[in-house]
């Protein structure tokens, strides 16, 4: 049929052939990009983790003067022993750990109930105004997580901690009990009301992908509605529930703002607040021990999740086609449930925001009468009689710088994360099935297990000294950008992958055959086709960075202060009303940004969150 002989070649020719093949492999765009990303992520994630660990097992400079025989930089298990044994271990580690767990577990169950129920009502029933409810359900996520904590204090603040009383006492005339004002109960409620959005989005996406035929089949066989919900619907959304569970659990475990506002005043410390305390006291190594403990627990939770659901990326969307679902009829319950849902939205969104706003107009905190209204907190000149002589927030030039820092940080992070996301998506999807692609995907996933506050701690450890070609970044704005990008890596990579999945590989191959080089392919084919995904990811990053606190609270300095950390500064100096003004400014900027960015190319926050 054909002359199938292949010419014989010598050893040196074979060597040339091998090096040519290697070079060709290396210059494949996905390979080159993957290698580049691996190096970047190695600097952003792996080295910091190593530094975190190594700091906890070496003597620090502060130890030298305190402890006999301590030599700076030498190996020691002192910090671990100190933090895990004896009375010290109990107060500094065990108690905060217990508290963190209490809050995480309480939060998860409350959020799961609220988010799951709301999702079912919106997706699966004939409840009126479902679109409106759907829009409102995502709003709490836009607000900083500790907004509700501040609103809580406006109502339930009691005088055991000194200062002015809250609205509750103003109306009832009696101080609310301590358990209602501070500690685990209000923390759990406030954190859950912030994070239920995750459950809501995951579960509603899963519910939307369930064919209602499955439920109708059960109905035809005579199962009642409760039974169908329990035996058919729930098992089908279980993976989505578990994804939400893990996400919310690890977030709640590391959350900082709310426990700092509602816990610290009564010495109810959690791991994150305790870490900050240790750092403030200069005990870096001790704080990092807590950071590692936090990471370990995150890893355990996530691997448990994988064991349970069986897939590694199970936190991702539950895929599937959309069906026209027949809504369940609520019949006589329709009105009652609608009223409950509306009342709930009022209670968690409108009332807190309204009260927070009202509070900012009070001249004397705690007096809610109309003749106490003033603009002093907003635009008043510095007056030693009010607010410790601080000028009104809008008159404070630092606030504008701070707001600009926030916007700049959010925009830069969103931009870099977006670009990084497309590149990650390209490398991972194009290289599917290769070890390199898997490695890139796993590295990008790694920050997911690191709670924000621990990641912040890691970055202090890493960038306080020059590292390789990178100068010492501590105290710089660039450091905030870098740590924010690192924190968002898992989300960037996820949205990049799902955007790339929608761009069939043939589209790029067609361009390759047409003679387009890598740059032309990216510029003319890949970037234009991933715009919608890019915008959704950009939006999500913008919002989350705007209100990010736990990640950067350890890293900000006077000059790099952002709005989120500025509120904490006011709160810790007992200037709650001014803190509330900053929160309102923060929400205003975020919502405006959301509206502006959302106008581009069909990007949407919900798309960004669910990743499809």
């Amino acid at each position, binding site marked *: 049929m054909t002359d199938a002989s*292949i010419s014989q070649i010598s050893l040196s020719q074979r060597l040339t052939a*091998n090096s040519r093949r290697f070079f060709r492999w290396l210059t494949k765009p996905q390979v080159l990009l993957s290698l580049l990303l691996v190096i970047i992520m190695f600097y952003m994630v792996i080295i910091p983790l190593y530094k975190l660990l190594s700091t906890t097992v070496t003597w620090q400079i502060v130890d030298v003067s305190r402890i006999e025989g301590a030599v700076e930089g030498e190996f020691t298990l002192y910090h671990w022993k100190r933090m895990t044994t004896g009375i010290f271990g109990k107060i500094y580690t065990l108690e905060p750990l217990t508290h963190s767990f209490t809050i995480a577990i309480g939060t998860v169950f409350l959020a799961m109930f609220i988010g799951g129920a709301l999702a079912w009502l919106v997706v699966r029933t004939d409840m009126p105004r479902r679109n409106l409810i759907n829009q409102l359900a995502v709003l709490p996520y836009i607000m900083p997580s500790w907004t509700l904590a501040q609103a809580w204090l406006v109502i339930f603040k009691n005088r055991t901690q000194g200062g002015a009383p809250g609205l509750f006492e103003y109306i009832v005339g009696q101080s609310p009990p301590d358990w209602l004002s501070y500690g685990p109960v209000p923390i759990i409620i406030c954190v859950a009301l912030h994070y239920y959005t995750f459950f809501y989005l995951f579960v509603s996406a899963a519910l939307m992908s369930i064919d209602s035929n499955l439920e109708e089949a059960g109905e035809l066989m005579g199962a009642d509605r409760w039974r169908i919900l329990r035996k058919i619907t729930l098992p089908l959304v279980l993976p989505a529930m578990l994804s939400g569970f893990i996400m919310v659990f690890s977030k709640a475990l590391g959350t900082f703002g709310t426990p700092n506002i509602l816990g610290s005043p009564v010495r109810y410390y959690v791991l994150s607040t305790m870490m900050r305390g240790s750092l403030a006291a200069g005990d870096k190594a001790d704080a990092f021990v807590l950071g590692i403990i936090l990471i370990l627990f995150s890893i355990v939770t996530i691997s448990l999740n994988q064991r349970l659901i069986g897939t590694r990326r199970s936190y991702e969307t539950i895929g599937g086609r959309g069906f026209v679902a027949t809504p369940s009829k609520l019949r006589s319950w329709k009105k009652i449930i609608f009223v409950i849902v509306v009342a709930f939205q009022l209670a968690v969104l409108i009332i807190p925001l309204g009260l927070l706003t009202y509070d900012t107009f009070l001249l004397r905190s705690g007096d809610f009468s109309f003749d106490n209204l003033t603009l002093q907190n907003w635009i008043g000149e510095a007056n030693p009689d009010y607010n410790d002589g601080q000028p009104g927030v809008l008159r404070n030039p630092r606030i504008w710088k701070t707001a600009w820092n926030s916007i700049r940080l959010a925009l830069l992070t969103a931009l870099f994360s977006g670009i990084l996301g497309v590149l990650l998506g390209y490398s991972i999807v194009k290289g599917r099935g290769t070890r390199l692609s898997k490695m890139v995907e796993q590295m990008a996933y790694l920050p997911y297990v690191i709670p924000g506050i621990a990641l912040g701690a890691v970055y202090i450890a890493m960038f306080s000294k020059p590292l390789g070609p990178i100068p010492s970044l501590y105290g710089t704005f660039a450091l905030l950008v870098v740590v924010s990008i690192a924190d968002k890596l898992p989300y960037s990579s996820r949205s990049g992958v799902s955007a790339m999945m929608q761009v069939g590989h043939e589209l790029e*191959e067609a361009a390759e*055959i*047409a003679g387009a080089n890598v740059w032309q392919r990216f510029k003319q084919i890949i970037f234009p086709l991933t715009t919608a995904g890019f915008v959704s990811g950009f939006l999500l990053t913008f919002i989350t960075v705007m209100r990010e606190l736990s990640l950067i609270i350890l890293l900000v300095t006077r000059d790099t202060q952002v709005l989120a950390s500025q509120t904490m500064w006011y709160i810790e100096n007992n200037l709650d009303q001014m803190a509330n003004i900053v929160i309102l400014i923060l929400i205003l900027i975020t919502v405006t940004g959301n509206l502006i960015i959302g106008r581009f190319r069909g990007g949407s926050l919900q798309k960004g969150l669910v990743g499809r």
Partner: protein
Amino acid sequence: MDTTIRIKKLTKKFGKVVALNGVSLVIEPGAFLTLLGPSGCGKTTLLRCVAGLEDPDGGEIYIGNQLVFSYEKGISLPPSQRELGLVFQNYALWPHMKVDKNITFALEIQKMPKEEMNKRVKEALKEVQMEGYEDRYPREMSGGQQQRIALARMLAYRPKVFLMDEPLSNLDARLRMDMRSEIKRLHHVAGATTIYVTHDQVEALTMSTTIAVMKEGVIQQFDTPDKIYHFPGNLFVADFIGNPKVNLLKGLINGKDTVDLGSFKITAETFGATGNVVIGIRPEDIAISTQSSPGAVEFNAYSILPSGADTTIIARRGDMELNIRVMGISEIKMDEKVWLSFNPQTLNLYNKESGNLITS
């Protein structure tokens, strides 16, 4: 211009799966070669290796005198330097570009002058009968129209070699018929060497000058459509080609030119072979009658399936079942007695062990 494509001992693995197992082929200039086989047989992989979208794990590919791939020498030209055009199964039209941009994309990269480009767009659209569609986005056109634009995009930059990866599989039956003749026509006019991948035997038989039937990464038969249909080289090809399916009957060679099929004997050219064989008979090569005649074998008409132009009759005798195809509408009724006769010239004998065609 020499556009002979020579493929030598091409091997490609995906992990442990061997997609191509030492494939060798020579495609003459101007030929229309169809790679035909069930899904997973390696036909698309072979096409993608020629295109340069996959790097094989062994072997060589020449286009004309140019060595475009050699594992042993470490050579692999990028797709753009192989001067070929590819039409994808799902068309791969860039959804964010209008028709004219889709067509001029490659030309712009070549920095072709604008007038020349416009001329090419007009010509290409005319060739696929899509004049006036320059300003449409792909999503604003039907599947068939998108298919034509995909062809126009390839034609516009005048590649030496056309590659087509199941281009018609996403179209409905009617459109597929139309496009078959269009593509055959385009090939005739352009005269470019063409490699066409399909799993549809009718497409392969109607359009190609040569067919390569593939299975599990190995070429089973490389021949003209006529030879492939009438003299399938082995049982796999015989079974894969033809609709209704070929009748395969197990038998034993008994004497010089007689095969014993158990309940009756049949006359066939045996080329001196002995032992167990499988006889392949095309359904249209069996004569059927309601009257007994010498040499005819009695069967029972088990089911009658008319389809207008022809009728398929399923006849049974014991546990033996045969498909018979007659032109037009048959008068035979179900459960009627029928007599079948076989023409020794149209029978193919296969070695039962190897499955290969027994020839002189």
